[in-house]
């Protein structure tokens, strides 16, 4: 009986000691990991810092504009070529949502805000009786919408 207890306590003590050492080593390991991570974060921060500066240098408006001139040839949109979505004639979505709409000539189906269409030059791509979607295309170069 006493021997049984002794063995039990010895085993228990041994297990506890082993567990404690295990935990101690684990803690140390975690702390090392933490130190390593903090160091890595600092290194990354320094790298990000340099990269931000480099990004700012590479995205200078002057440089972007020069690259555009060489590769893309984009030009600023003139104010006369911008219209609001509401000013567009009925879009495709509107047609699908309202299938009962009879295929009337475009002029009838247009909302009142779409009067600008009349200003479309006769030579433009959209004949009068085509569905309104056609009008959302950009007019040929050099011709203003309005």
């Amino acid at each position, binding site marked *: 009986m006493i021997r049984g207890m002794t063995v039990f306590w010895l085993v228990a003590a041994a297990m506890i000691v082993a567990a404690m050492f295990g935990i101690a080593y684990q803690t140390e390991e975690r702390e090392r990991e*933490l130190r390593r991570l*903090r160091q890595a*974060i*600092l290194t990354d*921060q*320094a790298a990000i*810092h*340099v990269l*931000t*500066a*480099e*990004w*700012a*240098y590479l*995205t*200078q*408006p*002057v440089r972007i*504009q020069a690259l555009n001139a060489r590769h893309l040839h984009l030009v*600023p*949109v*003139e*104010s*006369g070529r*911008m*219209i*609001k979505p509401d*000013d567009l004639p009925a879009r495709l979505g509107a047609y699908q949502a309202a299938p009962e709409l009879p295929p009337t000539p475009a002029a009838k189906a247009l909302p009142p805000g779409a009067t*600008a269409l009349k200003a479309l030059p006769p030579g433009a791509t959209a004949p009068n009786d085509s569905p309104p979607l056609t009008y959302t295309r950009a007019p040929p170069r050099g011709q203003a919408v*309005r």
Partner: protein
Amino acid sequence: MIRLRRKDKPQRSPLPTVLHPAAPGRVEPPRRNNQALEVAHNRVVLGVALFVIAFAALAFKLLEVVVLQPADEPRGSRIVGAPVRAVDRAAIVDRNGHLLATSLATQSLYAHPHEVDDADADARKLARVLPEINAPALTLNLQSGRTFIWVRRKLTPQQQYEVNRLGLPGFYFRREDQRVYPQGSLAAHVVGFTDIDNKGLGGVELKLDDRLKTKGEPVELSLDIRVQHVLREELLAAQRRFSAEGAAGLVLDAETGEVLALVSLPDFEPNEPATATPEARFNRITLGVYEQGSTFKLFTAAMALDAGTTTLSRGYDASRPIQIGRFTISDYKGKNRWLTVPEIIVYSSNIGAVRMALDVGTEGQKAFLKRFQMLQAPSIELPEVGAPLVPSPWREINTMTIAFGHGLSVSPLQMANGVAALVNGGILRPATLLKRAPDGPVAGRQVLKAQTSEQMRTLMRLVVTQGTGKKAEVPGYFVAGKTGTAEKVGAHGGYKRKALLSSFVGAFPAQAPRYVVLVMVDEPHGIKETMGYATGGWVAAPIIHQVIARMAPLLGIEPAPLDAVPDRGGALMAANGRPGAGR
């Protein structure tokens, strides 16, 4: 203990022996034995008790730590804050977070001369990898007996590697931050520059030096580098086109006073401040004060309208030049007839402006300009701020010349700030280079009636639709503004006919201005395309057109449909009545 028992009574347990007093013949030895046993027993009990107490304490503590978890013990895992890299000097960014100035780590080479073995040989070796070093000078320096000398500061990584490879004793590296301006000269006059010790020497770097040094987070400026780039590019083009000495421009938020762009040409490269001439470092927008010329007539008109001495439908006699003393005030390309108030602004009549100002009087003009803070240095987050040149004494002749923008020199910044108050409903707000919190209230002072402000918008719009500023118009954005052409003061006093300061101050969209744009070209020369003219309408107005056409879509301002605001200029010009109430 066990040995004791075995010696005395190997076959019996100690307990009966102790409790057996019935052996008189063997009293002595057992008593001695019993006594010893008792002592031993007590000691054992005591020892066991101590151990029990100690283990109980341990067990209790263990229980407390593991099971009970006292309140002061942090529960669960604790989040350790990520480390923050220390910066010597905070960055400067624009309103969208684009980097304008930052500090990058570099290594600087220094020496402790007393640790150097062979100064001459070391100096020659260093000069071989760092060509900028003068070997004899460095040798002298190393032999000077000082304890610390800089050899070469802010090396590139390649240079650092080369020096390290030499393995010279007594030479050390030290991390130093190098101030870098990734945008180059784009916003040089605003951002400023620093010396080799990262001490601010100009611009925001100097004005906010303490804040940059102590606080880690970046300083957010109100600038928008896209707008800044557009303005700078257009001014550069104009400066080249008209072979001008310089050019300057400013974009101001009419509602908040935030400066979106500030350009002064010629400018400099802040990464190499040593190459900047004083001329290039001069900030024409904030430090330069100029007689603004005709753009100042806006204030004369606003003053007269606000004081109630005139209305938009009244007129003045501009048929003859005004003679005062030895001066003659006449009109450039005058109409030589009776002009209505709108016509005075649209045709930029000096005579009409003078008559308007005389109606208000000297004191009224002084008080009005004071209210617009035209008579004191403006406040802005720059050290380079010029105070206006105010006439003293302020006689009637000064009132007359100031009416058309001569005799009082103010900085373009003050001019733009004043125009912002003219068009935004009459509220003067201090201009700022720092980004304001969005939707936050902006302190301002009502300096003009809201109705007068509306009238001023109408007048300025007329200048663009009917008058001298036609070239500034951008369809859909309703540019309003005023041209100005001032003759520069010569070296010996008096005005130089050929040296002009052509300017334009505009706002858009006219019905509810969001931005005020001012440009100024210093000594432009007329070219064939402008028929030799170098006036504000020919030189500055086209720049405004370009700047607004490019910046407005960038800032997300929708162009209005062209028929949104009917132009009622014709009615006003004919002076047939007051402007309609509706817009």
